[in-house]
């Protein structure tokens, strides 16, 4: 090694200075990324699903395109088809929009009136939403069964209604 002690100290200092710029640059890139996502989220450029109101507002653009429709299942609107699979219900959002959905297949076990759903499918000219894939979204609440309610797992799986569909004893 031909470098003196002063040389190596100078080298370490310059490297540290370079790293400081690198650190600053990396933080700037990271912040820019978070900000970009934040602005995109607030500007609603990134959308996972449309509510009934947005779906209605899209008009003909929604027909034939693959769309996710999200909202709450309207109480009293659920009708099971004559065949084993297939189900019809209305989906509503908080803004007052409502769309009729015809979905094929067996709904998930958690499906019930009043629960949140996300349906993948497309809007039809007839004015209903043709659902191909029905997903149920669970809220952030976790509650113990109410007084007198008896949770029977086998019954829950069979009924697809949860305890909400059960008659109070």
């Amino acid at each position, binding site marked *: 090694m031909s470098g003196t002690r002063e040389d190596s100290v100078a080298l*370490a200092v310059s*490297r*540290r200075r370079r*790293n*400081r710029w*690198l*650190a600053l*640059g*990396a*933080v700037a*890139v*990271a*912040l820019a*990324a*978070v900000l970009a*996502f*934040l602005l995109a*989220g*607030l500007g609603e450029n*990134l*959308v*996972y*699903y449309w*509510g009934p109101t947005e779906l209605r507002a899209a008009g003909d653009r929604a027909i034939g395109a693959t769309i996710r429709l*999200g909202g709450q299942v309207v109480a009293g609107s659920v009708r099971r088809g004559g065949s084993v699979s297939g189900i019809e219900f209305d989906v509503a959002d908080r803004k007052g929009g409502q769309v009729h959905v015809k979905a094929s297949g067996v*709904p*998930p*076990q*958690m*499906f*019930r009136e009043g629960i949140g759903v*996300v349906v993948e499918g497309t809007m039809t000219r007839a004015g209903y939403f043709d659902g191909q*894939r*029905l*997903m*149920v*979204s*669970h*809220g*952030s*609440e*976790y*509650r*113990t*069964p*109410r007084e007198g*309610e008896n*949770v029977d*797992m086998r019954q*829950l799986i069979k009924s697809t209604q*949860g*305890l*909400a569909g059960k008659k109070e004893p």
Partner: protein
Amino acid sequence: MASSVPRTRWPYALLGCGAALLAAGTYGGLFSAPPERYMGDVYRILYIHVPTAWNAMLVFTFAGVCALASLLSDDARWDARLEASMEVGVVLSVLLCAQGSLWAKPTWGVWWDWDPRLTTTAIMVMAFAGVLALRQFVDDPVRRATWSAVAAVVASADVPIVYFSVRWWNSLHQQPSSPGSVSVIFHRPLLLNSVGMLLFTLALIALRTRVAALRLEAELAPPPALSPALRQPS
């Protein structure tokens, strides 16, 4: 040659404490706590999924801090900590996705969907796994430390995005629960498992940091002197 990397016993104590708390919390979650009103017994995965999520986020946040410190301080120990926390974080978040998937099938009706929370989490796993892969390709320890620290700082930008994803966008994944939205009787196993997993995770990071520091020390050590048998006769 004696290593300058100190040998400590406290990680093993933490590992033991963490495992004991996890065992108690899991027992409580599986056997003592009542079923949930709508999900029945399926909800019990909450007792491991939520602690895993909290710890994965915490560990990746720590990785971001280590990366910044590594860039600003020139202290190789931060590089070792960065490597350890990224690796533990990737393991935790892969577990997180597997647990979430197992829970999603019976509740949502699907194993996976490109929901904002799930998508940003997948990006987070890929990003940190990518930084770990990058480390394998750089032979010079100083460059490896610099490059992976820069990449890790950028990767950690996704951590707050994952956290806020369910607030910023419509999602299939639920909003975070609060103590008020979870029945009180469910709290204790959740708390036990969260603290248990935190201790366990800290211990794993400490042990893995030691491995990384020892490897780095071996890399930087001068090559051993030639054995007398190989020397040219003078």
